[in-house]
């Protein structure tokens, strides 16, 4: 018989990755991710399975994130350090080139970035993303495509910079 702990085992990696790319710090991602599963635990008695546990968990994650961002928007923003944060979602280095993924994602329309990260970090399919976001699968496909192309352009720019 499954429990919230088992749901955690199945989905925490994807949920954390999604949240990690949506917030500035690891600590925030950890707090939010924990909150997601605590809420899932509370919501479990009312949850009727449709065979899409991932979509259910990510819907909770998205609500937790939206609440956090509303609060975060009201809170004073910290002055960014001149030193790069090695654990930041912003700068990710690879052996070939550097893409400022955090910045590139920030420049995307919110819906595009969200759909893209639900796909790439969350591992959800188009139908599941549509269920989570309330968009149609076609709209999801388009959003992911736009985001992917924008990030590809950023990747190309980073490649040219490294030459």
């Amino acid at each position, binding site marked *: 018989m499954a429990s*919230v702990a088992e749901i955690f085992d199945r989905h*925490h990696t994807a949920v954390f990755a999604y949240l990690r790319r949506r917030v500035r710090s690891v600590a925030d991602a950890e707090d939010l991710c924990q909150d997601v599963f605590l809420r899932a635990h509370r919501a479990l008695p009312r949850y009727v399975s449709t065979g899409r546990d991932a979509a259910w968990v990510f819907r909770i994650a998205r609500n937790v994130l939206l609440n956090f961002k509303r609060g975060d928007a009201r809170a004073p923003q910290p002055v960014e350090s001149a030193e790069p944060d090695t654990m930041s979602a912003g700068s990710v280095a690879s052996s070939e080139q550097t893409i400022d993924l955090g910045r590139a994602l920030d420049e995307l329309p919110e819906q595009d970035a969200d759909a893209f990260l639900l796909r790439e970090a969350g591992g959800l399919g188009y139908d599941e993303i549509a269920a989570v976001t309330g968009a149609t699968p076609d709209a999801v496909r388009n959003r992911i495509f736009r985001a992917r192309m924008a990030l590809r352009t950023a990747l190309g720019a980073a490649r040219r910079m490294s030459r």
Partner: protein
Amino acid sequence: MTDNDLELLSAYFDGDRVDPRRLVDVLENPDAIDVLRDFAKVRAEVMVEALPREAWVRQTRARLDALGGGSLWRRWVPIPAPALVAAAVVIAAIGVWTLRPSMPVHPEDKPPVPTRVVAFVEGQDWGRI
């Protein structure tokens, strides 16, 4: 390479169903491999440093275990609890009704009080009374 070609490659990269003939045509273009490689690089970048710390995983898992309960039994019984309770009440009522003893339902029901007494007289022609 057109936007439609790129969109098809993006959908293909996501495992979505695409027209195989169109896919063959698009893959004939040497740029297609570069596009797919870039998509893969972007995906790889997304997951860099996006994994949770093991200590955090253990801590959170322990916390969820400590909460207990949270059984998912209802996931396999897709009926709301109030409906289950109502169904149980109805079934119990039917059972009581079916198994009730065969006696007057209303205790006030009694034999009628006699208003006259007819004496039996042997040889009497009752048809003429």
